[in-house]
C-alpha cells in the first residue's frame, strides 16, 4: 500500500484529481451543513452518520488513484473484474486494521491538543472527542489511506515529504489546524448564536481550513507551479534542449 513516487506525470495527475475532487465535494458538504442545521449537532455523536459520506468519498478517491496508477504502470488486468481487480489486489486487512488504529490515535492526539489549547477537561468529553474524530478524519485518515502508515510516521517525525502528493497531506494538515484555531476565535463573541458552542466553530473552521489547504496546493502547483498557467517555463526549455 505504500507508494514511493517521484514527481512524475502520474503523481501530478493524481494530485490534481485529488485536489479538485476534494475541493468540490468538501465545499459542497460545508455548504450543505451550513445551510441546514446539521452544523449544530457537530458536537454530539448524532453527527457520526455525517462521517460516512466523507469516508466513502475517500475510499472512492483511493480506488481512482489505484486505477490511475496501475494504468500508468500498465499492469495486466484480470479480465473478469476489469478495473475493480486492481482495487481488490490492494486491499490488505492487516494494514487496514493498523490504519484504523492510527486513525484512533489521531483522534486521541487531537483530543489532547484541544484540551491543551483550552477545551474543558472535566466536562464536554463527547464534544471534544467528536472534534478530535472529525479533525482526524480530515487529516490523518486520508494520509493513512493514501500514503500509508510509514508516511504518517515520517510526518510525525517531522521529516520532509517524498513528493508532491505526500506534501499535499502535510499542507492540508497545517491548514486544518490553523482553520480550527481561527474557528475558536468565534466562541467568545457575544452574538448569542447557537453555533457559538464548542466544538462547532472549530470543526467547521477545520473543514474550511482543509478546503483552503487543497486550494492552496492547487494554486501552488497547478497555477504557479512548473506546468501551471503562470509557471516558469524555463525548466521545460532546458529539458527540451
Amino acid at each position: 500500500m505504500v507508494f514511493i513516487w517521484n514527481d512524475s506525470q502520474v503523481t501530478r495527475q493524481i494530485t490534481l484529481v485529488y485536489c479538485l475532487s476534494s475541493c468540490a465535494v468538501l465545499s459542497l458538504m460545508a455548504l450543505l451543513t451550513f445551510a441546514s442545521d446539521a452544523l449544530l449537532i457537530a458536537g454530539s455523536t448524532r453527527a457520526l452518520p455525517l462521517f460516512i459520506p466523507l469516508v466513502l468519498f475517500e475510499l472512492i478517491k483511493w480506488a481512482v488513484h489505484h486505477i490511475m496508477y496501475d494504468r500508468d504502470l500498465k499492469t495486466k488486468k484480470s479480465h473478469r473484474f476489469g478495473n475493480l481487480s486492481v482495487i481488490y489486489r490492494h486491499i490488505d486487512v492487516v494494514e487496514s486494521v493498523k490504519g484504523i488504529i492510527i486513525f484512533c490515535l489521531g483522534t486521541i492526539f487531537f483530543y489532547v491538543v484541544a484540551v491543551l489549547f483550552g477545551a474543558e477537561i472535566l466536562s464536554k468529553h463527547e464534544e471534544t472527542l467528536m472534534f478530535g474524530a472529525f479533525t482526524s478524519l480530515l487529516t490523518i485518515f486520508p494520509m493513512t489511506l493514501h500514503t500509508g502508515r510509514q508516511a504518517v510516521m515520517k510526518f510525525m517525525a517531522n521529516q520532509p515529504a517524498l513528493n508532491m502528493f505526500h506534501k499535499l497531506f502535510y499542507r492540508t494538515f497545517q491548514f486544518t489546524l490553523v482553520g480550527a484555531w481561527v474557528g475558536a476565535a468565534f466562541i467568545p463573541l457575544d452574538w448569542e448564536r447557537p453555533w457559538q458552542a464548542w466544538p462547532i466553530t472549530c470543526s467547521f473552521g477545520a473543514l474550511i481550513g482543509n478546503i483552503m489547504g487543497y486550494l492552496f496546493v492547487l494554486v501552488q502547483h497547478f497555477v504557479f507551479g512548473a506546468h501551471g498557467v503562470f509557471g516558469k517555463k524555463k525548466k521545460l526549455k532546458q529539458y527540451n534542449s
Partner: protein
Amino acid sequence: MLLKENPIIFYVCLLEIFACSLFFLSFFALKSPITVIASKSDFPSAVNEHKLDVQDVYRRRYNKIVIVIVDALRFDFIADGNHMPFLFKVFQNHNASCLVSAKTDVPTVTLPRIKSIVTGDVSEFLDLILNFGATELAQDNIISQAVSHGLNILFYGDDTWLRLFPKTFKRFEGTTSFFVNDFYEVDHNVTRNLKRELLNSDWDVMILHYLGLDHIGHVEGPKGPSIPGKLKEMDDVFRMIFEYFKDLGEDGLIILTGDHGMKDSGGHGGSSFEEITVPVAIINGGCDRTSNGMVIDQVDLVPLLAISMGVPIPAASIGHVHPKLLENLLQPSELLYALYYNTARMKSYLSPPMDHQLEELMSEGMKSYASGLYDGFKTDELHIYERHFLSVQKHITSNIPRSNKTGVSSLLIAITLLAQAIVCLLLKGTTLLPSLTSSSSKCVRSCCFIGTVVIFMAGYFKWALVCGMALILANCYVILTEGIDVKVLMGINPIYWFMLILHPMTFLSTSFIEEEHLFWYTTFSTLIVLMARIHSRKSLPDLALILVVHRCLQSLNATGIKWANISDLGDWLRAPENHVLMTSYYLIGVILTMSASWRCASSKYFKSILFILTMIQGTSVCLYYVAVTKNCQLFFHYPKSSGFWEVKCFWIATILRTSLELRNVLRHCVGSFRPCRPCMLAGVLVQLVISTLCLLMEPQNAILPAAMVYVSWRLKSPVEDMKTSEVLSHWIGTVYFFLSGNSNSISTIDVTAGFKGVDECNIFFAGLFITLHTFAFPILAFLLTLEHLLRSEGGSPASAKSRHADVIKLHLLLNACPTLVFMIVSLIQREHLFIWSVFSPKLLYTMCQTLISVSMVVISAALL
C-alpha cells in the same frame, strides 16, 4: 549610564506618563454637574389652566422611614427565600410589601452607588478611584432636601456617608470599611445603635448601612460558610424594625436594599448580572404582591423616597416614577401629580430644548391628565392617563449622552504625544549620545522640543491643538527623513510579530476585551507549540511540560465575563470538605515559591542565616493563612486570630533577609567579579517581589509565582536572542496576570490583598499592595528578563549597552503600542453602549500597565 547615553528613553518615559495621565483625566473628566437645587417652587401649580392644590397632593406620607442598605446584597440572597425567612414571609403575607429587583449603574462599588441612591444622577467612573477618599457632596440630593425641609435624619454604618454628608445627620456613628477581615464587629456597632434609637422618637428618617456581608463576600464569596449566618443576622435586624412599627401601631416605610451585588467569585465593581442586580424590598409601601419581580433602576429610588417624604425630587435625578409602586399609597390624582411633576422636572433639566417628539408627548399627557382632573379619574383606567408621561420619562433617560464631549481635543493631544513616544522609540540613531548631537538628528531634537512644548501648553487647549498639529507634521517629517529603524524589531520570529499585531486588533470587539485572557492563553499555547518546531529536540520535554502546566493553571481561576461563574479548581479547593487537599496544596505552593525566591537571590555568604530567614518567611505565611481562614487546617490545633503577629514576623524576616543580601552584594561584589553587582541587585529585587507575593497571593494562587519563574527559565533557555526573550517575558507576564484571576473588569481586583495583617489603615500601603498584587506578574516578568539580561554578559561593553537599550526600548514599545491603539479605539467608540462597562475598566488597566512599565524602566535605569 543608561540615562547619559539614552536621554531619548527618558523623554519617552516622560511622554508616556504625560500622555496617559492627560488621556485619563480628560476621558474621565468630571462632567459639569447640574448645580441647580430643586425647591418647592418647582412644583407645577397648574396643568393646562387647571389649578392644583400642591400642598394637598404632594405631602409627607410617613412619620418614620427606615432605609437599610446591606452592602453587596445580591438579588438571590432574598429571592431564594431560604436565607432571610422572616423577610420572605412578609412578602407573602403582608399587604403593602413587595420585592422588586433594581439594576444599578457601573462601576459597582460603594461610593458611586451611594451617590446614585441619593442624587439619582448618572455615575462617574472616576468615583471608583475616589472610593476611599470621598469628599462632601455638593450636588442636590435627597438627604439635604430632607434636612432642609425639617426632617431629622439619623445615620449608622459605613463612614463613606459621613464623608459625603459631614454635618447633615442629627445623630450618627460611622464604621470603617477598610478591614475586610472584620465580619461581625462592624455590624454589631450599627445594630447596637439601632436598638437604642428605636426607643427614641425624635427622628424621621433612619439610614443604616451594613458592611459585614461585603466583607464576607470579598473573603469567602457568595457561597461561603459565613454567608447564611450573616443573612440571618440581617433578617433579625429587619424583624426588629418591622416589629417596632407593628408595636407602634403605625406604618413606617422600610426599604431594604443593597448598594451593589456580588459576583460568584466574591468581588464587585464590574457589570455582570450578579453585580448590577440588587433587591429592593419595600415594606409598608404603596405596592402589593402583584409588583413582585418588577425590574426598576436603582436611581428610581430617589423619586420614590422624595414622594414618600414630600420633598422636592433632586434636580439631576434621572429616576422614573413607577405608578405601580405607589398605587396603594396615593390617590389617583396624587399619583398622577407625582408622575407629572417628575416628568416635567426631567424635561426641564435633562433634555435638550426643542425636541418636537417630546413636546408632543408631553402635551398629550397633560391633556389627558387635565381631562382626568375634570371628569374624575377612573381607577381601573389609570394607565391611560399615565402612559404619555411614562414614555416621556423613558425617552429622556435613553437620550442622556454617555460621554463628555468637551474633552476630545485633549484626548487627541494625548494620542499624538504617545504616537511621538513610539516614533522616538523606532527612530534610527537615537541609541547613543554621539549620534544625537550629529547634524542628522537636528530634526529629531526639534521634534522632541515641540513635544515638550505641547506638554507645557496642555493647559491651554487652543495652543496645544496647534502645537499638536505641528507635532504630527514634525513626526511625519522625521520619519520621512530619518526612516524607521527596524533594528529593534529585527531578530524576532515573524510569528511573534503576527501575534503581537493580532492583539490590538482584538480591541475591535467588546467580547474580546472582556475575554482577553482567552487570547493570551491560546496564543501562548500556540507559541509553545511553534517553539517546539523551531528549537531543537532537546527542549521538547520541557515545552510539553510547560504546556501541561499552563493548561492546568488555566482551570485554577475562571475569569472574564462569560465563563467567570463556572466552578473552577480554586472554588473546589476552597470548599470546606476539601480542606486537607487545600492545606497540602497550599503548603506545596508556599514551599515551591519560597524555593524560587531562594534560588533567585543565591548569596555566597551567610547562607545558613539566609536560609533560616527564608524558612521563617514561609512558615509565617503559612501560619497566617491557617490563623485567618477556615480552609487551611494543620494536624495540630492552631488558634484562629487576625494573624497580626505572623505577618509582622514575615515582614521582619523579609527586611532582615533583603538587607543581609544587599550587604553581601555591596561588600563582596567588585567589578571584576561575576555575576556582577547589577545582576545580583536585580536578583535581590526578584527575591523581594516573590516573597511579598507569597504573602499577598490567595491560597490557591500561591503556586503561581513558582510556576512563572520555572516557565520563564525553561522557555527562555533555548532562546539566545535577548529581544525574543523580552517578547516572551511580556507574554508570560500577561498570561500569568490573567492566570491569577485578573480580567479587564474592576471586580476581579482583590482588595483583601491590601489589608493582610494590618491593624490600622494605611491608604498608601494598601494601594501599593493592591497594585503589586494585581500587576505582580508583569513586574516579575520584567525583573526576570532584567536579571537574565545582566547575567548573560558577553562581547564588548558597547555592544552590551546597545543590547540593554534595545531590550528597554522593546519593553516600552510592547506596552505603548496596545495602549495607543486602545486610546484611539476608545476615542472612536466613546458613545458606545458599553463605554463605561467594558472600555473604561480596560482603559484603566492599560494605563496602569503602561505606567508600571515606565516605572520598571526607571528602576532598571538605576541598575544598568
